């Protein structure tokens, strides 16, 4: 009960933050009626999806301070669980998605247990490796479609059970609901015992242990929460794209994007991952299509993209949110 109250209580944010988030909520609710084109809608869905990923990553990567670069494997698990169960046994999305999340939770325990014996850069490298290994397995695994991936059967009529709709608007609202669920969850998380303990671990792990905190167990818990979040997003990706292959859902590129967006926006802050995704997803998309597609300057978008990241991180390691707080003169 207390946890629920915490999740819905935004009173400890400043007035500006609350008003800002309120306006943003209104914008999200009416967005589909603003007459945006399908491309903009896709970008919007991507933005919400990556915000969801980023918020999940923020538990272990932001609050816990563990540089985690292997989230793509859980996107993959979520996606494949939904896709395979639908193709093999015609199991509806609403059943297969939770099962996928449970698999991701189980898998993250198995992976997390040995992984958190490592610290710092070694941990970061190990997370990349586990993700790459899983990707390689899926690339070579005939049963699950190998490198070709699997296509989801397209239903003739829109079907809520299988999450198949003609219009992107429905997908938009679905991911928006997930997004708000994540916002509330994170709002509760940052005030929870685990949230406090993780921040202590990030600050000073030795001291945290002396205060009765089982650092490794806390990290595993946070890692699992992050994995569950990401697997939900993965499940959504499967029904949205109607296609799953190891390159699109398990790539290192995706892992890095998830971590990067959260870090650029501001790790260990409530709004950081949302700001990061709101900044990078459109940039990525618009620059990519404009420079790459129309001007024939393939690759230039990546240069601009990387330069921006370098500038922000050199100026303020706590990301865009850090810069905002700096300007507001809030104590850092």
């Amino acid at each position: 009960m207390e946890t629920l109250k915490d999740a819905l209580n935004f009173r400890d944010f400043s007035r500006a933050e609350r008003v800002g988030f309120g306006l943003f909520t209104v914008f999200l609710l009416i967005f589909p009626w603003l007459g945006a084109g399908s491309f903009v809608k896709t970008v919007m869905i991507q933005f919400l999806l990556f915000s969801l990923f980023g918020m999940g990553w923020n538990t272990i990567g932001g609050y816990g301070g563990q540089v985690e670069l292997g989230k793509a494997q859980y996107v993959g698990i979520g996606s494949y669980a939904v896709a395979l169960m639908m193709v093999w046994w015609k199991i509806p999305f609403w059943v297969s998605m939770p099962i996928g999340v449970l698999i991701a939770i189980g898998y993250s325990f198995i992976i997390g247990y040995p992984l958190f014996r490592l610290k710092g850069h070694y941990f970061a490298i190990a997370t990349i490796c586990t993700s790459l290994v899983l990707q390689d397995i899926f690339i070579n695994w005939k049963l699950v479609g190998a490198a070709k991936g699997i296509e989801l059967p397209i239903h003739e009529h829109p079907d809520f059970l299988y999450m198949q709709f003609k219009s992107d608007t429905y997908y938009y609202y679905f991911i928006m609901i997930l997004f708000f669920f994540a916002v509330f969850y994170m709002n509760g998380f940052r005030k929870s015992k685990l949230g406090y303990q993780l921040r202590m671990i990030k600050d000073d792990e030795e001291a945290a242990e002396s205060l009765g905190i089982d650092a490794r167990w806390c990290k595993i818990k946070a890692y699992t929460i992050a994995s569950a979040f990401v697997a939900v997003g993965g499940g959504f990706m499967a029904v949205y794209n109607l296609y799953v292959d190891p390159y699109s859902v398990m790539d290192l590129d995706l892992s890095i994007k998830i971590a990067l967006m959260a870090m650029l926006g501001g790790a260990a802050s409530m709004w950081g991952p949302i700001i990061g995704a709101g900044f990078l997803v459109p940039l990525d998309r618009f620059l990519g299509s404009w420079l790459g597609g129309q001007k024939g300057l393939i690759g230039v978008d990546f240069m601009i993209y990387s330069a921006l990241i370098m500038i922000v991180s050199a100026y303020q390691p706590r990301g865009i949110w850090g810069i905002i707080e700096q300007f507001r003169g809030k104590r850092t």
Partner: protein
Amino acid sequence: MAFLEVVDLVKDFGGVVANNRVTFEIHQGEIVGLIGPNGAGKTTLFNCIVGYHKPASGKVIFKGKEITGFKPFMTNREGIGRTFQLMKVTAGMTVLENVMVGAFCRTDERNLAKIEAAAILGFLGMDGVMNYHLNELPIASQKKVGLARALATQPELLMLDEVASGLNPKETEEMVGFLKKIHQEKKITLFLIEHVMEVVMPISQRVIVLDSGEKIAEGLPNEIVKNERVIKAYLGEKYAKGR
């Protein structure tokens, strides 16, 4: 029955023997000082008791239960709190939040943890700086945060590693006052490493002296300052004559 019992504790780092067959007892309600020259193995001994190091051999028994090789968070749950000689000073959390993390050790409720943490900070006269971050505080206050944090875990035995290092005489005096208050009001047994004789001598009921990893003396403070070996190893002739 002894409260804390250390039996034949040995800890070596490769060729260096940091603790060599150290044996001693601490009784409930005591204040025991641990002194010795630099590199005598005082902090290592602390780390072996609390669980940061695994002793090569020997036993640590707390309240009749063997806790040798327990992890630090486990010994904390058994009721041993500790502070560090050097605190990592970070901007991540406020003073209140730091102490709340300690209080979370005994409760799951945020509000209870907050009340508990505020009470401890009040006890140490830190009400005014609750919402500051660690890096904004002078060293004396940082040390007190370390103390408050450990107290918030409600220890029965509190092990303090050089709680007065870096403090000026006035702050040291204040710290001694707090230690006495903690001992009397909270009934916590204290075990402290200290270089500053002005801290150890007046409050310790018993002093243990380490030199090169071995216990060379143990006794009442005024006996210790007259002990030949201790004078030679640590105190120096001057201190002995001054008394």
